[in-house]
């Protein structure tokens, strides 16, 4: 196929239609650059296609493609654009729901908020660009997802980001971390969309392949929702925004390969962002939509003009003919191939209404933004690319957008699973069963016994004074401080204070203050709660559980702000899909997520799959990241995490779990032993649902003063955070836990009654389905009643105090530490001082 025979290849379909005059120009099809140098690498190979795919293309066209056409197929059929490995699996996701107006398949999902308004959301990964150029990689990640929301005709109102890096004491990881945060800030702040939430995890698994997932949320009036469809034949096709340059050519193909030693050389594949242009594009497009000039609109993201034209035409069953001479170019001498594949940022494809050409141009002119009429919608189903009179490419739009041959993957169970599961976290930690440990601590005089203080009517006694020296603190206080300063748990104010999180005047729960960001929707009395969540360690150790937990935890987070979880979007970050182990992980993560979405009633409205997240054979953890939308029906009932009133009851909704199993894959295990191993916490989705319903009903009845879900670091870290985030005068707690044995109502299932329990698990275990809430003592019976009717355990575990966290188990003090000391550990990890210190010095080297 590499011989340059047949210089006048005719388009197969055009011939059938008798349009023999339409000849596609030969550009030396089949001749690869390698081959010119005497090597035998065919052009399709160079562009990342397989031989089977190439044959399919020849079959579709009825001839061999030219170089431009081959390039167009190669990006559109890349994993990044086509989902050819993941598509069959994604069908498992539930996508229907009473609130879902538009599900997967469009630029973003649309969820009904009320009669008038809808919420638009989507998230996307930008992992590969970030690995080679963190600032621009992250910035253009923000830009791309914002344009996806814009393409629905919605005003972008919030950005969230979920980030994964190697440990921050590794210089490279720290460089990437700082670069990504400044990139998100530099772009997001400028376009005036608040960055309101997200998460940052640090683990060796992401050292050479960081993850950067960005979510954007928009608001649109339901009758103004725009679609990415080129639906009316003859309509003008505009390119609005920046001019087209050579940046980012083959970005999509780059994103569909493993990174290697020479990936730095791929830096030219990373696009450069211009947030000012984006801001203008936002205002221009919203005005065009509002004035009713628009039939269809689509972002030019991966694969640029090729994808936006092919997809809008394919969705509408039409064709598009464009003239490359009309495309404003940034540099001279660009070939059709380069123009069609350029991923220059800040460009939108606008299918205008016929007869409105002048008005559209006028709006663009007023905003000072480029606007070029590049073509028309046709009825022939073809994407026809001309340069003047010469046809440079002519391909069925549907073939590009939808006919990629699905890759049937082989799955194989990775051998590491059995190995990891065989490791017992309890023995790795050297943990002793609870009763013997408490007895030992008591006899060593390191703690004192006192009466249990969990009953609301119990008389709170004088807490003993905290010891001066850290070494004299009760042992688990030191463990708590260690957990609080672990990079994954530590306060992220250094990150989110670099983001403008207040612009647009809607942020009713600020970053860091609650389990999810809360934005009021002006004029409705309602609010939306947004979060991004995903624990890669769990998914690595038990993919199906990890998938389910990612959804459940995201839902629990929005519930903890008083919101009803309604829908998700997601990013699935995985290693190389050509490996059976990856697809085994993938299929199970998807299954777990699908099940959790089904049970919790949160359909999937779209998302993104990012494969090939491995560098030099080192894969990342399979990392599902869930973006969750919740709705608060009355914004005044929103909740934050911190304690608000001294004397409030601290209650736990969900099981008090002391079983050793909850330490598998935990942050505590990692902090203490450096290991990510064991069987991770398991989730009972039925219990999860009951717990969430209890919390939500209590919040909606106005019973709760605060709520915070238990996640990394377990109950102890959750309580510590509630103290540190508390209002002045209510920044402490006195907690009395009962060992599972002495509890009147068995918190664990009957069959586990004789299972040993561990102090470590009670404090730091990451058992699921748990929320710490506070409420007025008078309201405790009402909360218990809700728990009873919903079938979720509710236990009063202590009281809010002015300062300091004091935890005892069966009367034995296990934690006693001042709030100031906790803050020092928690806030000090990423403050200015720590971040300006050279890597390897100071707190990172411990």
């Amino acid at each position: 196929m590499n011989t340059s025979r047949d210089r006048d290849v005719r388009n197969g379909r055009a011939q059938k239609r008798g349009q023999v005059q339409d000849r596609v120009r030969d550009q030396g099809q089949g001749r690869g650059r390698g081959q010119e140098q005497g090597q035998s690498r065919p052009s399709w190979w160079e562009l990342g296609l397989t031989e089977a795919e190439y044959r399919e293309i020849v079959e579709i066209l009825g001839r061999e493609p030219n170089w431009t056409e081959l390039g167009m197929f190669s990006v559109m059929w890349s994993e990044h654009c086509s989902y050819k490995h993941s598509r069959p699996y994604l069908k498992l996701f539930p996508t229907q729901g009473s609130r879902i107006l538009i599900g997967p398949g469009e630029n973003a999902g649309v969820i009904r908020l009320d009669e008038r308004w809808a919420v638009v959301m989507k998230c996307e990964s930008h992992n590969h660009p970030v690995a080679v150029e963190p600032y621009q990689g992250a910035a253009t990640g923000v830009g791309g997802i914002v344009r996806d929301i814009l393409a629905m005709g919605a005003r972008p109102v919030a950005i969230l980001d979920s980030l994964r890096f190697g440990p921050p004491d590794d210089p490279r990881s720290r460089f990437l971390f700082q670069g990504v945060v400044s990139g998100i800030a530099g772009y997001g702040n400028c376009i005036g969309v608040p960055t309101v939430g997200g998460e940052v995890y640090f683990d060796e698994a992401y050292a050479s392949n960081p993850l950067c997932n960005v979510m954007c949320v928009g608001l649109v009036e339901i009758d103004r929702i725009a679609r990415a469809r080129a639906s009316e034949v003859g309509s003008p096709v505009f390119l609005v925004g920046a001019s087209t340059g050579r940046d980012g050519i083959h970005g999509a193909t780059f994103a569909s390969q493993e990174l290697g030693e020479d990936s730095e050389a791929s830096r030219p594949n990373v696009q450069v962002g211009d947030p000012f242009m984006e801001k203008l594009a936002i205002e221009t497009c919203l005005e065009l939509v509002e004035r009713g000039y628009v039939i269809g609109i689509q972002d030019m993201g991966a694969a640029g003009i090729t994808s936006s034209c092919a997809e809008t035409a394919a969705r509408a069953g039409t064709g598009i003919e464009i003239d490359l001479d009309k495309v404003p170019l940034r540099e001279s001498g660009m070939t059709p191939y380069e123009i069609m594949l350029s991923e220059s940022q800040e460009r939108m494809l606008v299918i205008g209404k016929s007869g409105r050409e002048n008005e559209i141009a006028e709006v663009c002119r007023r905003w000072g933004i480029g606007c070029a009429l590049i073509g028309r919608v046709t009825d022939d189903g073809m994407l026809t690319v001309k340069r003047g009179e010469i046809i440079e490419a002519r391909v069925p739009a549907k073939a590009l957008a939808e006919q990629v041959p699905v890759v049937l993957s082989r799955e194989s169970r990775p051998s590491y699973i059995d190995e990891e599961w065989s490791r017992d976290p309890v023995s790795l930690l050297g943990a002793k069963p609870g009763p013997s440990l408490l007895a030992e601590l008591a006899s060593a005089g390191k703690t004192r016994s006192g009466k249990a203080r969990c009953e609301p009517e119990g008389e709170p006694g004088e807490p003993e004074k905290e010891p001066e020296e850290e070494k004299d603190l009760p042992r688990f206080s030191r463990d708590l401080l260690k957990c609080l300063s672990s990079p994954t748990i530590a306060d992220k104010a250094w990150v989110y204070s670099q983001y403008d999180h207040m612009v647009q005047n809607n942020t009713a729960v600020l970053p860091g203050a609650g389990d999810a960001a809360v934005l009021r929707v002006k004029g409705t009395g309602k609010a939306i709660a947004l979060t991004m969540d995903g624990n890669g360690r769990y998914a690595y150790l038990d993919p199906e559980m990890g998938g389910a937990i990612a959804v459940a935890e995201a839902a629990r987070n929005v519930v903890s702000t008083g919101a009803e979880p309604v829908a998700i979007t997601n990013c699935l970050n995985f290693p190389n899909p050509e490996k059976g182990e990856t697809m085994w992980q993938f299929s199970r993560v998807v299954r777990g997520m699908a099940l959790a979405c089904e049970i919790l009633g949160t359909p999937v409205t779209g998302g993104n799959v990012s494969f090939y997240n491995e560098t030099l054979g080192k894969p990342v953890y399979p990392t599902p990241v869930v973006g969750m939308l919740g709705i608060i029906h009355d914004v005044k009932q929103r909740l934050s995490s911190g304690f608000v009133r001294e004397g409030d009851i601290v209650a736990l909704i969900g099981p008090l779990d002391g079983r050793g199993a909850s330490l598998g894959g935990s942050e505590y295990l990692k902090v203490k032993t450096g290991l990510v191993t064991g069987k991770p916490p398991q989730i009972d989705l039925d219990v999860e649902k009951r717990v969430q319903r209890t919390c939500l009903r209590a919040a909606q009845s106005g019973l709760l003063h605060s709520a915070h879900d238990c996640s990394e670091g377990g109950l102890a870290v959750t309580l510590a955070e509630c103290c540190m985030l508390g209002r002045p005068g209510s920044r402490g707690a006195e907690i009395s836990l009962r060992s599972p044995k002495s509890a009147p109502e068995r918190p664990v299932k009957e069959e586990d009654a004789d299972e040993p329990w561990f102090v470590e698990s009670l404090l730091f275990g990451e058992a699921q389905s748990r929320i710490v809430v506070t409420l007025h003592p008078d309201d405790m019976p009402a909360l218990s009643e809700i728990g009873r009717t919903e079938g979720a355990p509710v236990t009063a575990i202590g009281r809010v105090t002015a300062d300091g966290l004091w935890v005892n188990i069966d009367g034995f003090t296990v934690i006693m530490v001042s709030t100031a000391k906790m803050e020092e550990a928690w806030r000090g990890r990423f403050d200015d001082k720590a971040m300006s210190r050279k890597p390897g010095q100071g707190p990172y080297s411990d």
Partner: protein
Amino acid sequence: MKFGIVVFPGSNCDQDCYYAIRDILGCDVDYIWHTVTDLRGFDCIILPGGFSYGDYLRTGAIARFSPVMKAVKDFADGGGLVLGICNGFQILLEAGFLPGAMLRNKGLRFLCKYVHLRVENNKNPFTCLFEEHEVIRMPIAHFDGNYYADSRTIEALEARGGVVFRYSDEKGGIAPETNPNGSVGNIAAVINEAGNVLGMMPHPERCVEELLGGEDGRRLFESIVSWFSGRRGVGS
């Protein structure tokens, strides 16, 4: 009275100001496109926050050449009230309405958070409803808010009471630790000699409701309205 909010390409707090004035204060307000040259009918012009022209080159450096700025100059010279917030303050500095310049924040990063401010001067249209030395809370959100001027300029500014807000702690203490961005003398807001042009880095439009964490910004806008109605009362 009528407020006007200038919209430069890249302004992004224009709609927030509009919301604060129309929906919270219930006042008359209109947007003013940056090419407009006639400001008749307006009583107070707001240059809002954002990234005018992307803040490429230097913050406010391009916006000062916008056609509207000549009109704003005439408006101010005629005694009209001009309030520059964040990027608006930066533009006022670049355009020479106010003395001094902005440097990058001392930590070399963007900073968005609530800060405490001490009211240094309440004898002007913008802060007349605050007590002198009252401590208030407002959010900041900027990369270039490190106010700088040479010592003679600062002395003159201080001597005439040109400093309106200073970054402080919750008790009104002024110290390097309470200075988020490195500004000389913890200066957060500056007023011109005539007392009708105020530039401030904090965002009053972001704290006009308890729901969003505070109402001190609302009192700033109410000051303007109150001052204006008082003056009109006296004049007529």
